[in-house]
Each structure stands twice: as structure tokens, then as C-alpha cells.
């Protein structure tokens, strides 16, 4: 018992432990595991007097999102450097308020372990468990899909280790599946919809007929719902909303019905490879050159990333979407980060890299500020934490659902790129106030501080 939770208080709290069972466990337990367990203070992976602490970077290293995972890992390594006071300091120079001193965290040197989520919940959880059980990490971060984020977040709650989610766009992550131990810097589908609304109205007017192609799983559904709510509020009609299997590859059979549906906007609620394929094929079917109802046919991809833009190539040009962050932002924080990332690796960071870098810094800063690694205290520090200087303007981690609120970018595929990295053009920075919502609308419960 005690060996896996590393805390004595729990024995009494759960109250159903039998003496015999405990004895059995103790007898089975190899001695070297007992050693630290009892000496520790009362939370898991307490670094105690050790000279260093470890973060767990759990990113997709294999599978479709391996490139994103690689970029996340680059950002994490950079964050570790900066927290330990190496390199040029990056966003430590711009973050406000800042408690970190550039000497590690609470004077302990920061180290890290890595793992492969394979973009599969089971593999991600196994990897996270290894980090917690074997490597003794104090915090886990990373990932590149909502399924993985929700799965790992749930695990971290049970095990009492803080999880700073990476790329996860589903409303559920900080909605019905939110957890006390999980925080999200990324925006969500609801915010994408809110941010896109005014731009869509401006660009396409209020008399439009939209056709949705939606990846048939939870993230796709929440995005479809969010975008639908927004566009219908603008006065648009929804002609059809068709679910497509994940990984369909060839979407032609879903695209041809769009041709004769009378719709004049196609909204692709797809992500990653699915989005690259469906967009490429939609353009091949001539949708972008089409005139319907006397208007130019338009395609909208609510969630964009630079890697996806790369994969879609020419087809992305002029397409509208939202993104969490882009390297071309001109605020001090973004510039500092792009500069140190660029000097380290020779190319600009993706939004995945930015999200992950910031998450690592924020956790470290919260520990420093709380003066302890004790998760409940760190969580309390992060809850409602307001800061600036990390891109996207003044930002807040809302206490009620651990969702981060900041400005959202509406972007457009760049028509005339000035360099090979200049793929997305920021169309509009939608202020935070326009995308905020009541935490109650998505339900869910955070759960206890103490586990």
C-alpha cells in the first residue's frame, strides 16, 4: 500500500485496509522499496532532500504525431535549460510575475525523463506510470491528442502527480473530464468557435450554408458542436454534418455529396493526417473554385497547426482557422521564446512547442512560488494564477476548471510566404474576453486536492 502511494495518511482515510493485507504486502515487498517510502514526507515522489527533481515529458515519438512530439521535446529541453539557468533564459526574461531564480526549482537542479505516448491512451498511461513509479517524477506533461490527455490526466489525479496537458483541444479536457491535478494551456474547441465567429461573419457574411465533415470521435463532436453553435448564432444554416471515420485516408465519398448539397461553406472538423487528407482532396474536387448561391465556396478548418499546414502544402493557402500561438507574434514573450528556440535548433517553434515550453515554466514557477512540491499547494498556486509575457497577452489559469484563458489567434494560410516557415498569417487576435465562458456549461468535477 504505502509503497505505491508513499503516504501514510491514506491508510486511515480509506479505512478499509485490513491488517492482514498490509502484512502480506509488506512480506512481498522487496526491501529496497520500503526504504524511501517511509522516510518520505506525505506525498508521492517527494524529492525531500535530493539535489534534483525530475519532470516527465510524455510525447508521441512514434505514429502520426511524431514530428509534433519531437518539437514538444525540443521545447521541453529548452525549458529545462532555462529553468536551470543555462542558455539565454528565454521567457524567464519576460514572464511576469516571476518567482523562478534560474537555479533550478527551489534550488534543486531540474532533470527530465522522456516517454512515448504513441498517441494511444494505454501506451501513454503506461509511460506515465513508469515515470511516476520508476523515475519518481514530480510532474508530467505532454501529449498530442485529447484522448491521451484525458487518460493521462485521470491517471495523474489518481496517483497524485500534477499533469500539464500538451496539445488537447477537446472541451472535455477541462469540461466533463476535468481533474484537480490537470491544467491546460491550450485553447479548446469552444474558444475556436467563439474566435472564428466574428471573422467568419466579416469574411463570409451571415447568409451561409455550412456543411460539416467531422471526425467521428469525441474531439470531432465537441468541435462540430462548438462551431455549429457559433455559426448558427450568426444566422448560418447547417446543411449537413457528416461523421467520417478516423484515418479514412480517402475522403472522396464524403466530399462528392458536398458538391450538390447547396452548401457554400465546408467546415472540416478534422485534425492531423485526416485534416491534411480531407483538405487536399476537397481542393482537388474543385471546391475552392466553386460558386454556390452566387458566393465563392469557402473551406474552414477550425483547428490549424503549422505542421498540418506543411502537410497540406499549397492547399492551405487562404484557408481560415484558429491556432493557439504562432511564432510570428510580436509580443516580448513570443519574441524571446522564438529567439532562443531558433538559436538552439535553427528553425522556429510550433504551437505545440510553445504550449509545452510554457507549461513546464508555469509549473516550475508555481512550485517556486508555493515554496514546496506538495501538489495541493502547487495546485492552489496555479489555480487562478494570472500572468503575462508568455505570448497571447495577459493570461489566467481559471480556478474553476483549470482552463487557461488568453487571446486566441485566427489565422489564414499564407498566400505569399516570405520564407519556408512563413505558412500562417495571423488574421486577427481575438481578445480573451470574447472567448470566455462559464465553467459550468461543460459540467464535470475537479475532484479532491488530496489523493
Amino acid at each position, binding site marked *: 500500500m504505502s509503497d505505491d502511494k508513499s503516504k501514510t495518511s491514506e491508510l486511515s482515510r480509506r479505512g478499509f485496509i485490513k491488517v492482514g493485507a498490509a502484512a502480506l504486502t509488506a512480506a512481498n515487498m522487496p526491501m529496497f522499496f520500503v526504504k524511501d517510502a517511509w522516510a518520505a514526507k506525505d506525498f508521492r515522489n517527494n524529492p525531500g532532500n535530493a539535489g534534483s527533481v525530475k519532470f516527465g515529458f510524455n510525447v508521441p515519438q512514434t505514429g502520426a504525431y511524431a514530428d509534433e512530439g519531437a518539437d514538444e521535446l525540443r521545447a521541453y529541453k529548452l525549458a529545462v535549460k532555462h529553468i536551470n539557468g543555462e542558455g539565454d533564459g528565454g521567457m524567464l526574461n519576460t514572464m511576469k510575475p516571476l518567482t523562478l531564480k534560474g537555479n533550478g526549482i527551489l534550488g534543486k537542479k531540474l532533470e527530465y525523463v522522456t516517454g512515448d505516448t504513441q498517441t494511444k491512451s494505454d501506451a501513454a498511461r503506461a*509511460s506515465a506510470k513508469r515515470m511516476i513509479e520508476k523515475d519518481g517524477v514530480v510532474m508530467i506533461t505532454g501529449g498530442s491528442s485529447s484522448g491521451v490527455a484525458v487518460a493521462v490526466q485521470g491517471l495523474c*489525479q489518481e496517483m497524485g502527480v500534477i499533469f500539464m496537458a500538451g496539445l488537447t483541444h477537446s472541451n472535455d479536457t477541462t469540461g466533463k473530464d476535468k481533474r484537480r491535478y490537470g491544467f491546460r494551456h491550450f485553447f479548446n474547441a469552444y474558444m475556436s468557435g467563439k474566435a472564428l465567429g466574428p471573422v467568419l461573419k466579416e469574411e463570409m457574411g451571415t447568409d451561409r450554408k455550412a456543411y460539416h465533415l467531422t471526425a467521428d*470521435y469525441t474531439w470531432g463532436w465537441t468541435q462540430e458542436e462548438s462551431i455549429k453553435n457559433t455559426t448558427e448564432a450568426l444566422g448560418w444554416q447547417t446543411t449537413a454534418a457528416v461523421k467520417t471515420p478516423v484515418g479514412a485516408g480517402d475522403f472522396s465519398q464524403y466530399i462528392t455529396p458536398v458538391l450538390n448539397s447547396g452548401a457554400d461553406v465546408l467546415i472540416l472538423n478534422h485534425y492531423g493526417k485526416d485534416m491534411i487528407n480531407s483538405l487536399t482532396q476537397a481542393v482537388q474536387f474543385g471546391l475552392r473554385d466553386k460558386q454556390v448561391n452566387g458566393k465563392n465556396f469557402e473551406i474552414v478548418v477550425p483547428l490549424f497547426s503549422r505542421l498540418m499546414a506543411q502537410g497540406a502544402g499549397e492547399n492551405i493557402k487562404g484557408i481560415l482557422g484558429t491556432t493557439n500561438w504562432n511564432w510570428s507574434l510580436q509580443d516580448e514573450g513570443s519574441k524571446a521564446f522564438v529567439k532562443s528556440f531558433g538559436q538552439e535548433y535553427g528553425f522556429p517553434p510550433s504551437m505545440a512547442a510553445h504550449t509545452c515550453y510554457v507549461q513546464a515554466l508555469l509549473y516550475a514557477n508555481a512550485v517556486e512560488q508555493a515554496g514546496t512540491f506538495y501538489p495541493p499547494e502547487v495546485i492552489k498556486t496555479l489555480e487562478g494564477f494570472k500572468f503575462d509575457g508568455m505570448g497571447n497577452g495577459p493570461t489566467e489559469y481559471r480556478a474553476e476548471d483549470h482552463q487557461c484563458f488568453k487571446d486566441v489567434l485566427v489565422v489564414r494560410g499564407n498566400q505569399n510566404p516570405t520564407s519556408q516557415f512563413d505558412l500562417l498569417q495571423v488574421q486577427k487576435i481575438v481578445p480573451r474576453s470574447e472567448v470566455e465562458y462559464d465553467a459550468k456549461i461543460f459540467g464535470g468535477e475537479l475532484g479532491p486536492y488530496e489523493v
Partner: protein
Amino acid sequence: MNMPLLKNDWVIMAIFTVAVLTAPLWLTPVGAGYPDLMQKFAIFGIFAIGFNLLFGLTGYLSFGHAVFLGVGSYTAVWSFKLLTMNVLPAVIFSILLAGVFAVVIGYLSLRRSGIYFSILTLAFAQMSYNLAYSVLTPLTNGETGLQLTMDDPRVLDGPVGQGLPSTQLFGIEMSGYNGFYFCAVMLILGFFISLRIFRSPFGLKLLAIKSNQTRMKYTGFNTRPYLLTAFVISGMYAGLAGSLMAVTDPLAGAERMQWTASGEVVLMTILGGAGTLFGPLFGAGIIKYFENIFSAMNDGRLHEIFAFLPDWLENIVVAITGEFVGEGWHLTLGLLFMIVVIFLPGGVVEGIRRASAYVKGIFQSSGDKDVALSAEKE
């Protein structure tokens, strides 16, 4: 394995039991001695042993066995949600429901043999996966996976306090080492049953079917009931494995039923040595070890490992080995598959047999190499 001592099943069982229960001791030096990975070894060991009862004994290659793993997991989580956090009902229901699925899928698939059988099982599993991922989301919670929630009824348990309850066996929490020992006991039981089946007349019948199905049919022997029994038993093993995944970590995801998951157990079994008692266990262990330990190595860790080398050499070695670990661990796994099949047809167990025969040859006779050769032929 032709040491006379090992011919005695009880000796095998005793050694096996001791080896499994002391796993935390001997796995720690190789970095695998932590609860989650040991649980995975045991769980996938059970899965592979069960698969081997079908494939190893009858030669029928099911390419959709993961469906039973998924069914087991979903059943267990639903048992936690609706009934109780006690793991016993969950395990029992999982095995039973996986058995029911196996009866249906097996009954249909076993009407064909060879690759037609494989594709039938694959098709059933892929249908289950695709539906569980999307249309059946109310039942499976789709991509996110079926999880416990605060408002689950759990009719047999009283109201819980703060936070989600843990799985337990009459009060013993089933995470960490307890979870491992629970899985270990199940593995030992599973292995024992598999051993008995291997030695039983039923097992011999299955082997006879494998070696010559047509001849058995000509002699008027109806093979179908035997095959179906083997299929169902093997599906129940998978159901048990699936339920244990939920016991140690109460979540069930659709990916557990995807063809890659079915392929994994096939690879585990062939890699270790299909049709051998221990092979599937070795295969499961190797693949899970790679997935968890090799994938987690990064340059920093490699530098630690090779720190004893002179700096320039260390950098070269790290640069080369770096390609094969971390994000390159799939490459290593692929190479391993090829190397094992090319040089050790019959899998790891065959390799061990050859090695032991070779060693015996050296010890038994200085000069007479024929002994080693004849040992190999046997």
C-alpha cells in the same frame, strides 16, 4: 528444454511460481522492477499464453484476438461502475463475457481455415474497434475511454468519500505491487491451466489437428468442437487479461481492440516461440520491455550509460545508439523481429534450447562435438 528435471510438471510449476513472485527482485537491475511494467508483463503474459493455446496447439492464427481483450476491459470497468470496486466480480464477468463473444466469433470464423480464418477474426475485431471508437460511444466512451466517475451507481458499495474509489480485493487496493501480485497469481493459475491443457488428451487432439486436419476429417473425427473449445478458452484468457488491465488501471479504451493490438500478441507468441510453454511469456516480456524501457531512453540517459567510455568514443556510441532508442525504438523492434526469425526459427525458446544444447556439448565431451550436434537434432 530436455533436462529431465523439467519433465516433471510440479517442478516446472514450482520454479515458475518462485520466478514470478520474486520478479521485483530480479527485474530491478534491468530497470523493469516497477509495478506498472511488471503488471504488464503478467497481463500480456496471460494474453499470450491464451493465444498460444489456440495458435500454438491448433495452428489457427487468429488476427483479431484483441477484441476479447477489449471486451474484458469494458466489462470490468462497467462492473466497477455499476456494481462494486471489488475486482472479483469484474474478473469473473469479463471472462464470461469474453467467452460469450468467443463462442459467437469462433463459431462463425472456425467454419473456415487458414488465412480465411485469420481474416474473419480480423474483420470481427476491426468492426468491434471501429464501432467502439465511434458509434458505440455511449457504451465505451469512444476515444477517451471508459472511465470511473463520481456519479457511478456502484450499487454494492456504499457511498464513497472524496475522489474516485480504487479497485480493491476485499479491501486490498489493487494498484502498485498489490496489483502486480494479483496479476502474478492469475498468471501462475493461467500458466498451470495451460500446462495441464498441453499435457491433456485434449491438448494432444489439438496438436493432431494442427499436424493433419484433413486426415482427421477423413477418419470421421469432427474437429470443430475441439477447435471451438480451444478458441473459447483462449478468448477467455484474453478476457482475463483485459479485465486485469482494468483492475490495475480502471480505464478501457477502444484501441485495445485495434488490429495492431491483435498483431502484437501474434508477434509476441511467434517471437517467443509458438507452441512452446514458455515462449509466449518471453515474447510478451521482450515486446513490453522494449515499449517501456527502450522508448524511454534519450540522449541524456545514454550519456549516463556510456559515461565510462572516453569522451570522443562516448559521443560516437551515443550518436549511433541514439538512433535505436527513444523515437527509434520501433526500428530496434523491427530489426529484432527479423533477426530472431532469420537466426532463430522457432523463436527465443529455440534460441535458449540451442544455447543450452551447445553449453551441454561443451561440458559433456571435450573433443566429441557430435554430442552437441545430436542434442540439437533431437
